[in-house]
């Protein structure tokens, strides 16, 4: 037991910071943290957690994408989000419905596959997603 308090950030490795800023800031609509430290390390606020978008090649290690669907990003309506991103020219995967939630994958310019996600069913204890 080490007393983990929270997740300070999730590191999102990318290959081109300008392309990534367009994707996370303009297309996904995440808020840029004004305290972002560097040109090769840009932080976005995704509601409850910070995404640190950074380039491994300027931090002395090799780029490796996150495994598919590592980050499940909540949207109000997956079909509407998919349509908007497709309008912006992105290739969004097929929309699926698990019986509890809907999802669709979309890749950032570096190849990190983000999951657009919306759970509509209550949890087993009857509560709804926060």
């Amino acid at each position, binding site marked *: 037991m080490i007393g983990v308090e929270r997740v300070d950030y999730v*590191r999102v490795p990318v290959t081109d910071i300008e392309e990534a800023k367009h994707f996370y800031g303009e297309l996904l609509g995440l808020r840029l943290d004004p305290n972002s430290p560097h040109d090769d390390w840009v932080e976005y606020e995704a509601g409850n957690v910070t995404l640190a978008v950074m380039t491994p090649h300027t931090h002395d290690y090799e780029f490796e994408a996150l495994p598919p669907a590592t980050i499940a990003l909540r949207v109000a309506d997956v079909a509407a989000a998919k349509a908007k991103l497709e309008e912006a020219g992105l290739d969004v995967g097929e929309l699926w419905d698990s019986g509890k939630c809907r999802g669709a994958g979309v890749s950032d310019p570096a190849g990190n596959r983000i999951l657009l996600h919306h759970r509509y069913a209550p949890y087993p204890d009857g509560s709804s997603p926060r």
Partner: protein
Amino acid sequence: MIQARRVDFIAVPTKDRDRAERFYGETLGLERNPNSTDTWVEYEAGNVTLALVDPEQAGQPFAPLPFAAIVLRVDDVHEARAKLEEAGVEFLGNTFDSGVCNGASFTDPDGNGLMLHHRYAPYPDGSLP
């Protein structure tokens, strides 16, 4: 622009869910979400949920999270590292001090990249973590 509201979960890939449960629940001491099921297990890391997923069960190849993907805040990185090392966790390199924070990176039993982190300096605008 779509309006992303929050991160519902971060998926942590594993080849052995029982082993991963022991690591996240006992070694790291995270709370298991009581709404977890036999096929979908979640741990709460304060502000965000970590979901232990077995990609091979879904017919997908296993690939671990890259270097330091999930950065866990602790009060004292040195102390937390010592406790984890005592529990047999291997760290990658020395604990660093960047001038604004301390950090130490390690991997879970599946090789997923994690980091212990504590920022002690205020942000450029004067606010604190």
